[in-house]
């Protein structure tokens, strides 16, 4: 592949919240089709970093590119970029006034002007893909956490994204529902989706991640392939953190 342009490129990203420095010079690149797991202690800037990629959180300084699109550029039409970047939240954030199917149809119909019939067809296919064909007409309030999160993934996929961002997608779930969500994510990863996943699910990391990123205090401390990362970390901070969570 040689000179392949990275799918996501973050260069020297800084983010201040008042006196709190959430990001302090973060740089990394993610190739198309790569699955990257981000771990780190609470408050280390994982969510901030993820949310900077689709500019839900604008950076204080630094640059982000998705393919050749300059996310942080002042004249960039951020909505065009957000269409291509799917995001899945810890708290699902499904639209409670819409059925599962309508949740998925909203984006394509509103943003892309997809005709209703087509949007509905695609939504059904996506619901099938996440194993929820029978929940088409259910409102989010009637779905379990795991089901809601799978609908949320389908909703993001409906826009045909080239990158998917996951911010702790399973940490609000009861243990017995984690697997059904991780299975959907694994399926996506095998399908070649480019994914950035903030999660402490080591099983997922070992099964699907190409690289693991460890963040602490707004910086990237260490990056490596999962086996090397978990079995022989280089940095002391990484070792201490891994002892803590494993």
């Amino acid at each position, binding site marked *: 592949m040689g000179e392949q342009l990275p799918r996501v490129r973050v260069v020297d990203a800084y983010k201040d919240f008042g006196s709190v420095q959430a990001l302090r010079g973060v740089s990394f690149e993610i190739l198309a089709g790569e699955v990257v797991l981000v771990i780190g202690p609470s408050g280390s800037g994982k969510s901030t970093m993820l949310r900077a990629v689709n500019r839900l959180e604008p950076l204080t300084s630094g640059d982000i590119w998705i393919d050749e699109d300059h996310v942080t550029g002042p004249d960039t039409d951020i909505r065009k970029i957000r269409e291509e970047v799917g995001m899945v939240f810890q708290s699902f954030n499904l639209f409670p*006034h819409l059925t599962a199917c309508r949740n998925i149809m909203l984006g394509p119909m509103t943003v892309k002007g997809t005709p209703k019939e087509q949007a509905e067809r695609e939504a059904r296919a996506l619901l099938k893909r996440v194993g929820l064909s029978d929940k088409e007409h259910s409102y989010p309030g009637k779905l379990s956490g795991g089901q809601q999160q799978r609908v949320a993934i389908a909703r993001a996929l409906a826009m045909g994204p080239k990158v998917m961002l996951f911010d702790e997608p399973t940490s609000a779930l009861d243990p017995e529902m984690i697997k059904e969500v991780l299975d959907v994510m694994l399926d996506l990863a095998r399908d070649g989706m480019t994914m950035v996943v903030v999660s402490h699910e080591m099983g997922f990391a070992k099964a699907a991640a190409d690289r693991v990123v460890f963040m602490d205090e707004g910086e990237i401390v260490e990056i490596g392939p999962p086996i090397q990362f978990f079995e022989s970390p280089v940095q002391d901070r990484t070792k201490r953190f891994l002892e803590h969570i494993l």
Partner: protein
Amino acid sequence: MAEVNEKRSIGVSDGALIPDRAEKTLFSAWRISFFGALILLGALPLISPDPFWEIIKFIPDGILRTFQVTVLSIIFALIIGLFTGLGRISRSPVINRIATIYVEVVRGIPLLVQLFYIYFALGQFVRVPRLVAAVIAMSFCYGAYMGEIFRAGLQSIPKGQMEAALALGLSRGQAIRKVILPQTFRIILPPVGNEFIALLKDSSLVSILAVSDLLRRGREYASRTFEYFETYTIVALVYLVLTLFLSKLVAKMEERLTRQDRS
């Protein structure tokens, strides 16, 4: 979804007229009041047709006028309230300030004074028909109260809803229209319903501008015949039936929305 249910009870209103949903017995307070008033309205003219039947023939024009003022004012107050609420949460400081000043000023002046002001004081410069002045004053006043209800409702929608919509590529405007407002309407229905009822009752104030609403018609009749007791009894009963009917309607709508999408 306990969280949603908590959110629904944004306390803004005087609530007393919204029937308690637990109260489903045959002799609920609502039923006794509503049917009691209806029976009285039917029975009084039969018992003594002389004043009562005459009164009942005299006031329907007034009911129609009251209805007109109320419905028009509700529509305009809702529109003003929507934009005021959006203004109150706007990120533009100028818009925000304008909306806030409007709310503060209007809430600081009694409705009766506002009615006088728009019809008599401003009337020195622009003469508008009484009915128009009445509707303007009522809408202007209730728009501010509705604005506060809209604001509270909008702010009660979790931040994640806007973020999820933006992340899909929706503009802020699209997100507000498709995601935030539909949820807001459900939440604010009970307090808005209470405002409807309050507005219906307050519409009797417009009789002071000689708009011949229900109260004014009653007054005209009574001052001609000196049958004050009989006339105002009928007027009060008609208001009671109207407000109780409206409150039931609001409660039914609320019930339907609640049933539709809650677990």
